[in-house]
């Protein structure tokens, strides 16, 4: 048990992302309201974004903005600066997730106009008639 707790504490960021991801996954699969599903999708995506960003953390690391002449003279000490790549990747992932959300909201708008509701059960009921 103690070992298990130590494992959780040592890698607590990964455990957090797993918990967040499962919350999002549950909302996507389990919720009957279409907007809640969409929010679940956003939580899911955010969890992955946090995984990437937390992987880029370096304790005591400086921001990766370098002086060109300094670098040319002394080179880069990679242990001193935070790896910027995961953050840059996640900027792109955030853009993707925002655009998916935008498209999904537009589609939801059309569904609402068509059926007058966003509850999946009520929509299915209306379709059944």
């Amino acid at each position, binding site marked *: 048990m103690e070992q298990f707790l130590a494992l959780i504490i040592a890698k607590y960021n990964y455990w957090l992302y797993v918990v967040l991801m499962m919350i999002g996954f549950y909302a*996507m699969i389990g919720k009957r309201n279409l907007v809640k599903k969409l929010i679940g999708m956003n939580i899911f*995506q955010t969890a992955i974004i946090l995984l*990437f960003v937390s992987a880029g953390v370096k304790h005591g690391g400086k921001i990766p903005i370098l002086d060109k002449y300094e670098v040319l003279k002394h080179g880069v000490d990679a242990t001193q600066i935070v790896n910027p790549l995961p953050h840059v990747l996640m900027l792109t992932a955030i853009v993707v997730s925002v655009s*998916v959300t935008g498209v999904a909201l537009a589609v939801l708008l059309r*569904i609402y106009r*068509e059926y007058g509701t966003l509850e999946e059960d009520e929509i299915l009921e209306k379709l059944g008639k």
Partner: protein
Amino acid sequence: MSTSNLHMYVLAVPLLTAFFVNLLGRISRRWVAPLVLGALTFASLASLCVLGKVLRHGSFSYTVGNWQPPYGIELLLDPLSALMLVLISVVALFASISAIQSVRQELPGQEHLFFTLYLILIAGLLGLVLTADAFNLYVLLEITSITTYGLIAMGKGRAPLASFNYIIMGSIGACFYLLGVGYLYLMTGSLNMADIAGILPTVDGTAAVATALAFILVGLWIKMAFFPLHGWLPNAYSLAPTGAGLLAAPLMTKVSIYLMVRVMFWLFSSDFLFLQNPLVSTLVVWAAAIAIVSASCLALAQRDLKRMLTYIIVAEVGYMVGGIWLANSAGMTGAILHIVNDALMTLCLFLAVAAIVYKLGSGEFDKLQGIYRRMPVTMAAFTVGAFSMIGIPPTAGFFSKWYLIQGGIEAGHWQYVIALLFSSLVNAVLFFRIIEIGYFFKDGEQHGHEKKEEAPLLMQAPLLISAVALIVVGLGSGPLVESIIKLALPAGF
């Protein structure tokens, strides 16, 4: 225009034209058709040149913006990706000739919006085929998905609901893929496929790497609608505007399968996949066999031509996934040949459906009575497509199925062989039922004087060309395999 970066033009021309279609299409709808067809004709010709170049001088890689890999984004042109480039641009060209007519009828006044998304989707597919960077692949995957969501939502009635379902499922798939790439990045510190493949054998922590592979595969399986994960596809493709189905049905699933091949053999290695844990490949082949059988049975239950075809697509995905995981040369050859053939067969059948829907308003079986008298040309081409789906020689479908069955026997996976034969039989039942409805049943009232009412010539021409292409590719599959597909096989096969 220098020829060394011709493939960049293949990618850039549809993307830039999408912008102009939107802009000029607002001024006058007459701009849309020439712009779309011009861009795709150019892309097709250029991609043929690229394929010729790759076959003559061997594969090469291209770094965008001269940022050297592994830091910059690398585009890889080998026989496999060049073949896919040709396939995508040519299929897109023929699909769009017919799509222009059907969009004009189904979505009057929205042609420019439809074709903006349509061209971005094509550019996304072309990019997916070219890229050799794992994260870039994720972005392009989402570009193709987002445009498809939009295209599907343009349909009538329940289409937005189908599109929303696809958004949820597709996002789960893309997120799983991204998660897998994240694990690989944590393990190797790189995103370039070749670079990761080089570093992976030196990394210990096979559990994390195997998890990464599992996440990536499940993500791609959702995107390609591999059987238990296929739920979104039939509704999405059958409720979408016919023009969107024309493009998405032949290409989306096939490109996802191409991506699976890329990831399996360029990112990981066949040693890692098949030798470390042979149980996994057996399980996947079993899953493929079950997928083929179940999807074929579901197809039997449909009462609408479009919906029936969407279930056949799901079954065909099972063919190719199984063929790849057989892990032998015949299976791999069959799977890659089947990517080409299946794209052409699906194109041919969907073009026929587009022509039928154009004339009849829908593809319900009840409406198809006497269709052979009314639309003889369309139905002749449809029959060729159907024969190819069933696998009757000399159509293309027979030859790839032959390779797949051969591979299945070699690998000793009899369940897969039986599933293939079962699916051929079911396909025969499915299509002969339509032929029976269309040919032998008589319309009580119109008996004796059914008028011929074919779809416009511009919808028939691509249909006939695709039907002829099925026979030509079928007869030429020997040289095709020898000169291109043998070169396109992953290392070690």
